[in-house]
């Protein structure tokens, strides 16, 4: 069977031929005849520039097909053909979906994305047709025992559309003991949607070297200029809310900080003056082992309120994020009362149990029921957990 491809289509029944998409497309992928506006499958690179200016929503259709519809097909349509079923058995999609489902298990059920989050692209690149990236940065973030790295992947002229909070997949080279390709590994994106600096076409990962870890050692050893295949992006729920009044409570340990670095970068660049605030509870063993410790010191409290928590400071009692939450119960209580609070938890599995207990006690002391509150946050897309 041929590899399936994703195709961008315009609904001719809804389109009003306003020409906005054709005028907006930076690479001339959209054209029209007397009948329809159409997207050239050989040119479109899924940059999404045309989507938000479309007044009708007709532009926002994505089919996964064995063979793309030609321009002639599209010109002849009076309506979209029936949408082919999403290929649920496609090994790449299901592999990533299973990994994400596992990571989100502690959320406590299906959760929609934050209501104001931008619409993500997912599964644009798969195992059969990955995006080739070049390593343009590999910087050690930590000292001491842990080796955590900030790795920058550049996509050259290829568009790899991501949102803060999404993940990408990589596959270590070689085969496993059974002679099959290795399983996919997911890594959260640690940069903002428009790259490490505005309008660079790259993204960053936060990777911790683990003893004997195949993928982490492979990535952490990457030389500048090395290339690798990237698939994805994945994840349609753990996303940055865009609402200006969204207060975001971010709780993490270690490399779980990656998505929150993306959140913070986006807000720093694009929404510095809004009244919704970022609140970070971030745990590590020591300052030296806390990724991004240096850069975090430079961020103003108006952008990001930080609670950096250490469990192995010499001569000090061990403190974990849940301990700091309890110590700052007043702050947490005030946040829980905010009308548009979003809670995100990301880090090693096990983190959620301690955090859960802290939330329960803090809420109870303030006369609130955490289970009820959490359920209402979850069902409205405002409670997200990603642990591994």
């Amino acid at each position, binding site marked *: 069977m041929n590899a399936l491809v994703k195709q961008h289509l315009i609904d001719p029944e809804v389109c*009003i*031929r306003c020409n*906005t998409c054709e005028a907006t497309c930076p690479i001339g992928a959209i054209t029209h005849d007397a009948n329809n506006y159409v997207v050239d499958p050989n040119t479109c690179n899924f940059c*999404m520039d045309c989507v938000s*200016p*479309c*007044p009708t*929503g007709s532009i926002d259709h994505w089919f996964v097909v064995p063979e793309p519809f030609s321009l002639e097909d599209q010109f002849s349509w009076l309506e979209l053909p029936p949408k082919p079923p999403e290929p649920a058995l496609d090994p790449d999609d299901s592999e990533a979906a299973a990994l994400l489902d596992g990571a989100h298990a502690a959320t406590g059920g299906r959760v929609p994305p934050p209501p*104001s989050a931008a619409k993500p692209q997912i599964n644009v690149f798969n195992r059969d047709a990955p995006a080739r990236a070049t390593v343009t940065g590999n910087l050690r973030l930590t000292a001491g025992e842990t080796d955590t790295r900030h790795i920058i992947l550049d996509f050259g002229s290829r568009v790899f559309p991501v949102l803060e909070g999404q993940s990408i997949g990589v596959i270590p080279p070689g085969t496993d003991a059974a002679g099959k390709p290795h399983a996919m590994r997911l890594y959260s994106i640690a940069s903002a949607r428009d790259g490490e600096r505005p309008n660079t076409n790259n993204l960053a990962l936060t990777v911790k070297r683990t003893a004997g870890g195949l993928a982490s050692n492979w990535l952490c050893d990457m030389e500048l200029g090395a290339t690798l295949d990237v698939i994805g992006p994945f994840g349609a729920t753990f996303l940055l809310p865009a*609402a200006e009044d969204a207060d975001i409570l971010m709780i993490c340990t270690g490399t779980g900080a990656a998505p929150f670095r993306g959140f913070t970068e986006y807000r720093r660049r694009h929404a510095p003056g809004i009244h919704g605030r970022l609140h970070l509870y971030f745990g590590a063993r020591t300052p030296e082992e806390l990724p991004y410790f240096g850069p975090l010191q430079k961020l103003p409290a108006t952008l990001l309120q930080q609670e950096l928590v250490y469990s192995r400071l010499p001569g000090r009692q061990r403190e974990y994020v849940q301990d700091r939450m309890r110590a700052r119960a007043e702050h947490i209580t005030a946040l829980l009362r905010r009308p548009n609070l979003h809670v995100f938890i990301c880090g090693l599995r096990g983190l959620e149990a301690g955090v859960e207990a802290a939330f329960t006690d803090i809420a109870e002391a303030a006369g609130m029921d955490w289970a009820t509150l959490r359920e209402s946050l979850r069902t409205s897309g405002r409670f997200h957990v990603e642990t591994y």
Partner: protein
Amino acid sequence: MPDGINIDYDGLIPNNVDLAGDARVRKALETWHPGYIDWWKDMGPEGFQESLVYLRTAIGVDPKGWAKFDYVKMPDYKWGILLAPKVEGRTIPFGKHKGEPAWQEVPGEYRAMLRRLITVQGDTEPASVEQQRHLGATAPSLYDLRNLFQVNVEEGRHLWAMVYLLHKYFGNDGREEAEELLARRSGHQDTPRMLGAFNEATPDWLSFFMFTFFTDRDGKMQLEALAQSGFDPLSRTCRFMLTEEAHHMFVGDSGVQRVVERTVEAMRDADITDPHDIAAIRALGVIDLPTIQKKINLHFSLTLDLFGNEISTNAANAFNAGIKGRYREDKLEDDHALLDATYPVLRHVSGQFVTEEVPALSALNLRLRNDYVQDCISGVTRWNRVIEKAGIGFKLALPHVAFNRAIGEFAGIHTDIDGNILDEAVWQAARDGMLPNDDDAAYITSLMVPVTENGKFAGWIAPPKMGIDNKPGDFEYVQIVA
């Protein structure tokens, strides 16, 4: 420092034109601002100024930043001054200055002409807000109410866009014109708006949809022609306005389509196949197709008048000067000077229609109008698909361009919708069959009952196929505060 993409939201007036660095213009606009807010409160949407409306606001003029949705009270809407990014090295694309660098300041010899064009364009923007100010009271759904308000606030922003140009480039004269824009009133006996169609009432929602389909589309054509201008600030302003204008086309286009959908659906459910059985169809509480056709006849003909005289020296001068181009001038392949070209014009000569070749420069109004008619046809074709799909033998159509005209070649004559010339007596007798009459108006008015429950729609209009900003069907587009 704004870089032309990101917008400065720090001052009173969001902008990407570095107002912070231009004290004179900033002060002029800040002085104009309270009058604008007073105008909005007096003449803007009646009764919903405190309600939270799910509106889009531009936070950047690039594709990713310009359509940000959130709840906002209309008087708090961020009306800003947003120009499309400057194209370095842009040259004047047509006329006798073709190939010279685009003007960043007003050329002295064209000052009066430019001021006039900008003022006329500016006058239409508040006019339509005034015309539509009572419609909120009878909206067929919260979805439609939101769309109305989106159109209104963006027309308000388009007024700002023109006022900025007047203040920035036309000194005292510009300031006076800007004041006048707030002083005229649509339909007012003594101080009417400048163009005829903008003094007509918008009495009901079908009229609103027709207005946004036909009359806002004239606005689109005018903006397209001005977007080609050699005066670069005008070009950049109009290019950004066009992105917003597309939504207004959508409201009209899809609005009429939904009315047609609901009508044919009700007819099918009641087993009515004769589209002319008006009494039976109206008994279903929907708008019969012949009445929809009459509305088309009215709004199309009123809007054609906005294009002015078919043969026009002003239009020739504006083109020759490089001030106002043709529709999609940049896509046309000719010499862009038109000194030797001719263009066929349908004229009325002693009781006959004749086609005459006239100098193309003189016929630019007509040329733009012809492009407009083509643009309208695509919408009508889509409406007809809905009727055809329902198996009903009826076709909506645009009337003949000579029908019901007050300006230009056909101003002095009467015709039927096929362009057959009628004498006064026949016209008087036939008129009520071709244009909405008192009975039609009374019937449509009787349907205009507000529906304010989430996800519910009045019985005469179908729900939209998709929500705004991909929202689900029962989304609360307007949180009404009485």
